[in-house]
């Protein structure tokens, strides 16, 4: 039993190491980006409310004049120092986000160049992450790709007969955003993605 145990522990270690490839990096980076986006959004909103005591007219905390508006509260220098520190950190997070996107682009250029081309870096990576891998995405029907990221709405539809969702994460793609008929554009884009990701996966 003890030999078997040692053998299996060694096997597992080996398999963990073998399980790593660039795809894992794409998925992790994409999920991290999503977290980063959420954080940036809520920090921005919170800081806007905070800074608003001082300057009622603030629209974007990343673009503030530093001057008090007529109805603004008299904040001390100490109050302003921490506020500015928070705003600067938010700015750094935006740079971090850009760095992550650039890195992700490089990974995808190697692994899925055609998908990157058609879907763009963020949507393309999200699709891989939602599918669980390039292989999984390549074996998906185009209709399923169209709804990746819309699972909640899809199940609501199946359960209660509400309207069926027309798009998942591909909704944010330019071709869908710019289209009059978003459902049709989403269908078209999903079919194109389904085609190119198959090429990306099966070439070699």
């Amino acid at each position: 039993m003890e030999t078997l145990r040692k053998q299996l522990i060694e096997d597992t270690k080996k398999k963990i190491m073998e399980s790593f490839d660039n795809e894992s990096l794409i998925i992790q980076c994409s999920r991290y980006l999503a977290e980063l986006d959420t954080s940036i959004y809520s920090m921005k909103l919170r800081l806007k409310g905070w800074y608003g005591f001082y300057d009622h007219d603030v629209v974007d905390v990343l673009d503030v004049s530093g001057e008090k508006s007529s109805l603004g509260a008299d904040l001390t220098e100490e109050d302003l120092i921490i506020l500015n520190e928070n705003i600067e950190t938010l700015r750094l997070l935006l740079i971090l986000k850009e760095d992550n996107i650039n890195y992700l682009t490089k990974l995808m250029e190697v692994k899925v160049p055609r998908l990157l081309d058609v879907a763009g870096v963020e949507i393309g990576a999200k699709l891989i992450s939602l599918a669980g891998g390039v292989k999984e995405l390549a074996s998906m029907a185009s209709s399923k790709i169209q709804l990746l990221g819309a699972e909640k709405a899809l199940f609501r539809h199946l359960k209660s007969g509400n309207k069926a969702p027309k798009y998942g994460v591909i909704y944010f793609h330019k071709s869908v955003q710019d289209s009059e008929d978003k459902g049709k554009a989403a269908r078209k884009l999903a079919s194109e993605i389904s085609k190119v990701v198959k090429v990306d996966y099966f070439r070699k």
Partner: protein
Amino acid sequence: MISKLKALLDEGIDVGLNKEDNVLYLGASHGVTAKIISKIVGSKGFVFCLEVSSIVMRDLLKVCEDNENMVPLLYDANKMEEYEDKIKKVDFIYQDLAQRNQVSIFKKNSETFLKEKGKFVLIIKAKSIDAVKDVKEVIENVKKEMGDVKVVDMGKTHKGHYAILGEK
């Protein structure tokens, strides 16, 4: 969140797990529950911990290295033929998978690995069998498929989960 096995034990339910048992754990995850089982079976017992995700396995591997009666198996419970030769017959199977075909996975594994009269706990997440159907209906179907078993609603601690307790 509390371990599902611990929730069952805290309720005073006898799951049929004994000292010195050899156990197969399908879906061992990070190893929290697996460690509880390892403590119960003691140094003369043994726990085979099967887990498919290599990321989760990093944690589980550490737990297995620290506990001499635990072994890790990085395999898919759907592909029994890949690990068939690595596991001995066991007295107990504990399964907690969120898979659509979790019942048939259990049946296949218990047929091969569970000794006659061996006991089992099968945790069912109704939502992953059918996300649309009514939970009660899903559980009724599982009950029909499993035959003579005891069903425990774990809704108090784990929403939408049921424990199926039985003997081969």
